[in-house]
């Protein structure tokens, strides 16, 4: 999608207002100096210049925001479905998914809104200033132009160092965040071994380390802005000294121009405008870095896998799923049109990922996998999807045209019929974003009911009996065993009673 670039022009138009202000100030002071009339006209021009600058600045920032918003919209339109179509170990974790979809898109948006327009004006506006200044004093224009050369060299040197430091710092912050997540998650065992002091010292040390790294980055970044400011100040000082000596007639060389006071003062007021666009650029540099880092991170979101060719049964031959720091398998088993397979293993051993591979959502790294086509598979997950609509709609997500009796039968089978009966509106009860009135176990059973209503040849269930009391768990176990007489059922579970009834148990 093409993003319009009007904000850059608006930033550049700020120079026009600055020029009118400078001209008004110079005229008014000249009138004051020579005791002529014209002070009021000059002051009026100054105010006009101020108003024009207000309009430019306002317009530039609002236009910039709109350009950023356009980008964010088109980004989200493709990114949201993309992120939701990834499963398994390669898919970003839940927190990371939200970071990608919200924070990284916001960082890109901020870059387009704040940095890109200013960059555009940073090339146009200084040229415009030099041209306007040259109309009054070619020597002053030359001075401005000449300070640009050491400035550019300084910026290149300082900027390169800043970039490297910024990359290292980004990595340090990500690592710090990961360390904190991990250590906080394991606080119970850390406390059990009385290791809080040692771990807290480690966490504190890591935080100090990130602070030190950040300071190193900032030293480099501030050095490049110091270079910028030095030349900005130097150019103003040189222009002031040149104009002053020129008015005194004391220049050590023969000037190619005769400067009057109005021209000299105009040039003095315009001189800071020469570096202003670049100072704005430096101020938005942080947005650029974050935006580019975000762009990189978004580009690294893996592509959705292509589904394996459709088969009429499930077959795994030495299937392994491997990713950095982790390995699942190799696993081999076959399952025909009926039967119950249980996948067991401790948390984090890859039960859900293996289930997703069997659903065709994760490509195995090794081995041969055959499975049913997507429309032949039903999924009952650990945290079932709840959309903000009615309970009935939520149950029919897998098959909207299911009969009322089928929905009722499924709810009875998972033991949620009493729950429905207790609600005034029954199946028409509204569900909000977090499914506030449902417990974890009820949500899980709702997901299973949805999978039953979908009525597909292969049923995949992820920890269907977790969070359930013993009686409800028994009911679900019996239900799954009965379903396995009619269709293929594969379950990831911790539950030994369920595993004991399986035709095959796959231990990870």
């Amino acid at each position, binding site marked *: 999608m093409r993003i319009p670039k009007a904000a850059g022009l608006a930033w550049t138009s700020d120079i026009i207002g600055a020029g009118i202000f400078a001209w008004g100030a110079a005229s008014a002071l000249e009138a004051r*100096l020579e005791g002529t009339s014209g002070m*009021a006209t000059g*002051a009026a021009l*100054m105010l006009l210049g*101020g*108003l024009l600058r207000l*309009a430019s600045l*306002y317009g530039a920032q*609002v236009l910039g*925001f709109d350009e950023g918003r356009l980008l964010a919209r088109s980004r*989200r*339109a493709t990114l*949201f*479905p993309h992120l939701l*179509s990834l499963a398994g170990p390669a898919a970003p974790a*839940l927190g990371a998914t939200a970071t990608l979809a*919200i924070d990284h898109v916001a960082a890109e948006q901020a870059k387009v*809104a704040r940095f890109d327009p200013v960059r555009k004006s940073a090339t146009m506006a200084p040229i415009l200033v030099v041209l306007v200044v040259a109309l009054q004093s070619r020597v002053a224009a030359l001075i401005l132009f000449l300070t640009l050369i050491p400035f550019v060299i300084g910026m290149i040197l300082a900027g390169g160092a800043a970039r490297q430091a910024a990359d290292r710092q980004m990595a340090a*912050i990500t690592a710090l965040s990961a360390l*904190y997540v*991990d250590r906080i998650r394991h*606080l119970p065992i850390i*406390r*059990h*071994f009385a*290791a*809080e002091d*040692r*771990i*807290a010292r480690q*966490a*504190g040390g890591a*935080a100090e380390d*990130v602070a030190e790294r950040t*300071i190193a980055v900032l030293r480099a970044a501030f*050095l490049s802005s110091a270079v910028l*400011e030095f030349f900005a*100040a130097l150019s103003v*000082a040189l222009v002031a000294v040149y*104009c*002053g000596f020129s*008015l*005194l007639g004391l220049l050590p060389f023969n000037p190619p121009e005769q400067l009057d006071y109005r021209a000299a*003062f105009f040039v*003095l007021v315009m001189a800071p405008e020469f570096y202003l666009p670049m100072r704005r650029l430096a101020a938005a540099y942080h947005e650029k870095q974050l935006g580019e880092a975000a762009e990189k991170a978004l580009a690294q979101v893996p592509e959705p896998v292509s589904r394996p060719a459709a088969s009429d049964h499930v077959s795994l031959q030495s299937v392994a799923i491997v990713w*950095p*720091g*982790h390995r699942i398998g190799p696993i081999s088993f076959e399952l025909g049109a009926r039967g119950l397979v249980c996948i067991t*293993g401790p948390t*984090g051993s890859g039960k859900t990922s293996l289930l997703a591979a069997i*659903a065709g959502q994760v490509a195995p790294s090794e081995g041969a996998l055959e499975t049913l086509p997507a429309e032949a*598979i039903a*999924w009952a*997950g650990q*945290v*079932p999807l709840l*959309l903000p609509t009615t309970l009935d709609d939520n149950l029919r*997500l*897998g098959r909207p045209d299911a009969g009322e009796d089928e929905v009722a039968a499924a709810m009875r089978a998972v033991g949620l019929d009493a729950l429905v009966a207790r609600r005034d509106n029954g199946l028409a009860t509204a569900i909000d974003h977090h499914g506030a009135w449902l417990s974890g176990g009820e949500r899980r059973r709702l997901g299973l009911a949805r999978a039953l209503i979908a009525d597909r040849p292969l049923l995949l269930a992820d920890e269907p009996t977790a969070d359930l009391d013993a009686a409800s768990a028994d009911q679900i176990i019996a239900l799954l065993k009965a379903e396995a007489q009619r269709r293929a059922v594969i379950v990831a579970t911790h*539950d030994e009673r369920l595993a004991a009834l399986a035709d095959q148990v796959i231990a990870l």
Partner: protein
Amino acid sequence: MISVRFPLPLPRRVKSRIALGFAAALAAGIGGLVLLALSGWFLTAAALAGASGAAAIAAFNYLIPAAAIRGLAIVRTAARYGERLWSHEAALHALAGLRSTLFARLAHADGRSAPDLSGGDASARLIGDIAALEDLVVRRPGIPAAIGTMLVGIGAVALAGWLAALLLLAVLALLLAALAILPTRLSAAPAAEAAAATAALRRMLVDYAAARSEIITYGLADRVTGLLAEQADRLDSAQRQLARIEAASSGLLILGSALAAALTLMASTASAPLTALAMLAATACIEAVAAIARSSAREAAVAEGTERLRVLLALPAPQDAPSVAATASWPLGLGQATFAAGSRIALTGPSGSGKTRVIEALAGLRAPAHLLSLDGKALAMLPEAELRRQIALAPQEPMLIAGTVADNLRLARPGIDAAAMEQALRTAQLWDRITRMPQGLDTMLGEDGGILSGGERKRLSLARALLAERPWLLLDEPTEGLDAATEASLVAALGAWLDATGTGLLIASHRAAPLALAAVVVPVEAIPAA
């Protein structure tokens, strides 16, 4: 203006950086103001002298102002660099200190009553919300320095007459009111709306991402994207309003600068050179307002960050950690039965009957639900530290930290060397596997023991519990996921270790081999509720 305070007292190092930052900010602000004002005066005075003939030129001392102008350009640059560096150093050290303090408080909180924060939630607070406080410290030197600069500017403008100074004061007051108060008021509603929309979007994304296999299976991506886009649009419109307020503020500032300059010019009763000086000083004075306006614009984000830190700030500061060196071994009470130190007990019962609950309560991980005692004292009465001296746990879920094999083993107690690690790993039947890894004990495991299989993780967790050297060893399903041969050698090695150390054992398992280690069987149903 800033009304939110930094949540903890700032350390001396931070305070000294803030003071240095203030001095540098003041030097930079005044330096910039004088540079501009002096340039205007110099130029106008030079024009006046130039027009008055050779005598006037000869009498005009141009060397001092010309040198001062160049000198000030350097001073201002250096001072600005110092201001930025020192104020950011102050902020970053303050944040690191706050992170460290709050993490320590969270870590030292009693596990049975600590706030139940998920890892992601707590780390979002410790990383993200604390980062939002950076501004609070960074801006601290800038605000008084801006006020100082303004005072000097008003003094410079007073050279052009009291009316000019008065008018400048009026413009400053107006701008401060418009930029430091109005935007805060106007942006309160859209800022809250943007925060609410972001929070809703984040929650929905996490919920939907948790259900993505279902979304793929049932082909619901478009429908879900539509729901997310609604929230995103809500966020965009709130942010657009905020962007307009910010844009109007910066525009207003520049108009204020033109207004102050024009008013100074018209009101000046002084000579042309002093008028030029005052006019440029007035514009520099308005620039100083920007520092204050920026601070108030970010106040909302800072206040929100502080609010979310409240849970952690409310935790008590950690006491000196009590020593966990093993004292005398205490007898263990399960219900009415008491077992002397060194006993080997099997805890049995069907799945879901509460074996893990008993074990986790004894280890201090959860509040007890059963009648349990140590040294004759009810478990609930004993502080966590007392439990720790007696009990080492290899839990059902291995609970490995991200780091190396050695990092995990060192968790058990301070001062564990490689030889002790090797011995424990040999007992746990994991030594061969670890030596086959390219980096041995220094192999990075990844999250939750990533590169190890389920059974290997459990054995690493077991080795860690052995290294703790506490009177009682608690094992919850230690051999699940092991083949029969490995299980047999593990049970044999464990038996030898128990014999050698005289450690007591409480084991829960549904497998026969490890249960054979026990001399007594206690059905969990026999332990009454607390």
